[in-house]
């Protein structure tokens, strides 16, 4: 049964690819959209929230860089560039809510919002309580500004950590290694 996503509040785009449906909505109306898909379309199960940083998307084909002491980037682009340039993305971050309807026709949908750095994404903890930790993780590792979360603290990184490690501008190898020969 094909579900009708047209009436979802704040709808921007519906994409179908590889058998998966992505419903892109306006972040300002995310909570309305969430209530709509939960109550009208039956998506009662939030499986996952995945934030992605698209900084440098379609650039050198390099994901992050490996810095050395002298600032050299040893993770240079591969021997070839892209065979075709990837489609540009509307904003820097995407946040994807992977939803599932626990019923016989087991439908899945990906609710997606696009935001720039610092642009708030309203919390959906009131809609799906399981979003609690997923949103904390999105903030902790990706720095997505979750708005209205009852307990927005770091979850995987230590409380006093600076920066958001899964961002593309966060270097790998930037952390000093203790007891190494350089010390």
């Amino acid at each position, binding site marked *: 049964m094909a579900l009708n996503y047209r009436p979802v509040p704040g709808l921007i785009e519906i994409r179908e*690819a590889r058998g998966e449906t992505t419903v892109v909505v306006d972040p300002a109306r995310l909570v309305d959209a969430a209530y709509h898909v939960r109550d009208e379309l039956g998506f009662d199960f939030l499986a996952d929230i995945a934030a992605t940083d698209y900084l440098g998307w379609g650039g050198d*084909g390099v994901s*992050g860089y490996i810095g050395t002491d002298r600032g050299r980037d040893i993770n240079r682009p591969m021997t070839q560039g892209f065979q075709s340039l990837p489609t540009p993305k509307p904003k820097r971050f995407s946040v994807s809510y*992977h939803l599932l309807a*626990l019923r016989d026709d087991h439908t899945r949908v990906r609710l997606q919002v696009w935001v720039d750095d610092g642009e708030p994404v309203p919390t959906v*903890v009131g809609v799906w309580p399981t979003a609690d930790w997923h949103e904390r993780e999105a903030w902790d590792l990706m720095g997505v500004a979750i708005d*209205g979360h009852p307990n927005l603290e770091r979850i*995987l990184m230590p409380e006093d950590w600076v920066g958001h490690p899964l961002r593309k501008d966060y270097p790998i190898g930037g952390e000093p290694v203790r007891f190494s020969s350089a010390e």
Partner: protein
Amino acid sequence: MAIAPERAKIYDGTRIPSPIPSILEVPAHLRGNDDILTVNFGPNHPSTHGVLRLVVDLDGEEVVGVKAVIGYLHTGFEKSMEQKTWWKAITYAPRMDYVSFQYQELCFVLAIEKLLGIEVPPRATWMRMLLSELNRIHSHLVWLGTAALELGAISMFWYCFRERDRVLDLFELVTGYRMHTRYFQVGGLAEEIPPGFFPECERFVELMPGAIDDYEGLVDRNPIWLERTRGVGLLSREDAIALGQSGPVLRGSGVDWDLRRREPYLAYDQVDFRVPVYPAGDVYDRYRVRMDEMRESVRIVEQALRRMPDGPWIADDRKVVLPPRHELHTSMESLIHHFKIVTEGYRVPEGEVYLPVESPRGELGCYLVSDGGPRPWRVKFRAPSFVALEATATCMSDALVADMIAVLGSLDTVMGDCDR
């Protein structure tokens, strides 16, 4: 920015704490009471299955507040995987959930295959199913052994680890490694199945049902076991769904949901198995679900052994799959392909996928984004242990100190999976 308008929250009227679903706060009338004792449970405690810290507020023996603190095993696997080529990143996946390592591998490989749109030969599909079901037995044995050990059933641990060792022997026979096998390759398997595996595996299939009877004989009518597991750690059907619980925890709360049945992947639509569902939502029912699942897994392994198709074990796609070793000496083209795949890696078409599989701990999902290059742009795992720990506050809302151990055990969390 407008916060959620006032509407009925899904957890109004349930046992899920509000407003923070994952933290049980000390009730107002007990706050400031000198008798409330705040205890750090973990991070290094033998029954926390890794390094989990629970900050527990106790009123005598009663748990009145609980907060789970995680992240002690965070290693940044997802970030590391972005730096590797697709096929080198496969090695990282099993290190997250080190107890159900093959599911991690399977999930990641299936997700890459979905992006690539590559056809996998039936022999590889059936072997993947066979090995991952063996892995489910392995995972449940580790769970049963340790969870029972924590409740005082020490001998159970030795019996479970005896059979677990046999499973690991089988893995070693096929892949050369006992854990973190890295046997699943994009397109199929890394190597042909050694012929000696089949008789050994048949012996295991014959032995295992009797072994499960033994375990049940040890605890099923044991009054201490029943006393400590029945009616403890309650999670209702609605709470379990709202908290995103999956796998045995969800099925132990009376929800008939198994991805192998509902969204069949591999060859699960061609084998006969039962999905155990129990209604009470307590520790005992989660135990029952896992015991039944072990029996069903043995049945699936038995069917896979009997019906293992012949034919190639890896797809014949030279842009993705390494060419056979012997061709490297005779064919220039194979050598070039080999060189390109090993150095540069294969390219995966642009796109995003989310692929769920039913791991022993529940829905294990892999969200991948590719920019069309040889390395993943984003890898995100939906870790069932991470989600299971969100339920601690709800499950422990009327628990005693001793019940905490039983509840935590019954959620079957692996901290490597949780923290990634």
